């Protein structure tokens, strides 16, 4: 599902090391079925908490002090516009928009954002770049401001981790 690469099947040629050396072993990560899929509206509502989550964290705001810009975070095609000024999240607005400007967009399935924000995310859903590698997210637009501030943006987006359903 979700374009996740299929696990390689053992051909029987190699020896699983856990058998040879009595190691803990988990050859294939089972997809953990989620109790209820996260919706695009829930993703937007979660993102709208970013100002309260970000702006009181002095180290994070300081890290982003040279970043001012506007970007989209999208879930199942529903865009959320985030405006940052010198490391502080000024506004978060849910679309759709008409002619709204933005520099870069981070687009993913709502379900992927839900998995990303789980307390201990499964492999592949634990990082925005990992989700891109997995094929459940993609980066678009002018990536220069994103790359120049990648740690900041990644840490901002990860802040709701473990808080879904608790707000």
């Amino acid at each position, binding site marked *: 599902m979700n374009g996740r690469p299929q696990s390689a*099947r053992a051909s029987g040629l*190699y*020896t*699983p090391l856990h058998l*040879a*050396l009595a190691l*803990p*072993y988990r*050859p294939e990560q089972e997809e953990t079925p989620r109790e209820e899929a996260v919706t695009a509206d829930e993703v937007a509502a979660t993102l709208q908490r970013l100002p309260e989550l970000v702006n009181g964290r002095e180290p994070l705001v300081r890290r982003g002090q040279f970043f001012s810009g506007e970007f989209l975070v999208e879930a199942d095609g529903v865009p959320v516009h985030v405006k940052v000024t010198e490391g502080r999240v000024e506004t978060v607005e849910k679309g759709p928009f008409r002619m709204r400007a933005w520099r870069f967009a981070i687009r993913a399935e709502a379900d992927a954002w839900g998995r990303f924000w789980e307390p201990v995310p499964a492999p592949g859903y634990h990082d925005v770049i990992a989700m891109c590698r997995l094929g459940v997210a993609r980066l678009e637009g002018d990536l220069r401001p994103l*790359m120049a501030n990648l740690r900041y943006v990644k840490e901002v987006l990860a802040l709701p981790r473990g808080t879904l359903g608790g707000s």
Partner: protein
Amino acid sequence: MAAVFEPIVGRYFTLTLSGRACRIYVEEAGAGIPLLCLHTAGSDGRQYRHLMTDPAVTERFRVIAFDLPWHGKSNPPAGFHDEEYRLTTATYTEAILAVADALELDRPALIGCSMGGRIVLQLAAYHARRFRALIGVECADHQTSWYDTTWLNRPDVHGGEICAAMVSGLVAPQSPDESRWETLWGYMQSGPGVFKGDLYFYREDSDFRDRTALIDTGACPLYLLTGEYDYSCTPEDTLRTAAAIPGAQAVIMKEQGHFPMSENPAKFREYILPVLDAIQRAG
């Protein structure tokens, strides 16, 4: 208060590689079977400091880690300021064998992570008789390109920050913060273009898929250990590689990412000590 020194000792020596003098930094600890350690792309030998301070390892292994030229405390060769650094299969192999020869290591065991894991396959195929065992951590025969490496070295994006931010997700969520950030610090410190130049080897010059059949694990045992959170060298990549090499032994490590020896040393012990036991038993 008197300093309580770690058992790690570091020294420098000069090695001629591709006709050029290279000042190499090497550190070691312990005594016994030589265990040569290869760091990941864009980092250095400090990644192995926990193996070097673990008596369960150093009581029977002489653990040796060197920094490749351009990395850590090994300088780039004279003239570097006018060239673009690019590691290749040939230059990487030359450096490893030359260091082993210079240190007069007798059939060392070797452990390499990430690009160090990739070169393990080259060593297994073409130089197996020089090693008593090969351990590829985060090792696979090929990696699908998953980002544009030009972001890693350009004047409008800070090199240290982007290298660390690009690999930060390769550390498993369960890894302790102190070890996570020490691992990333290595990436923040690498010289401009070094990580990118290493990835030339990893991405462009080392597709090993058509050569795995050359590996004879009867000549030299091959162990492959990969973290479940590694999305660069994925568990699927490693298991595919292992499946193509008769006799290769593979394990997927729980709650580990791409840098197990440095991101979660306590967890890595659970996996590496049984491998070292097996190497010791084989003699």
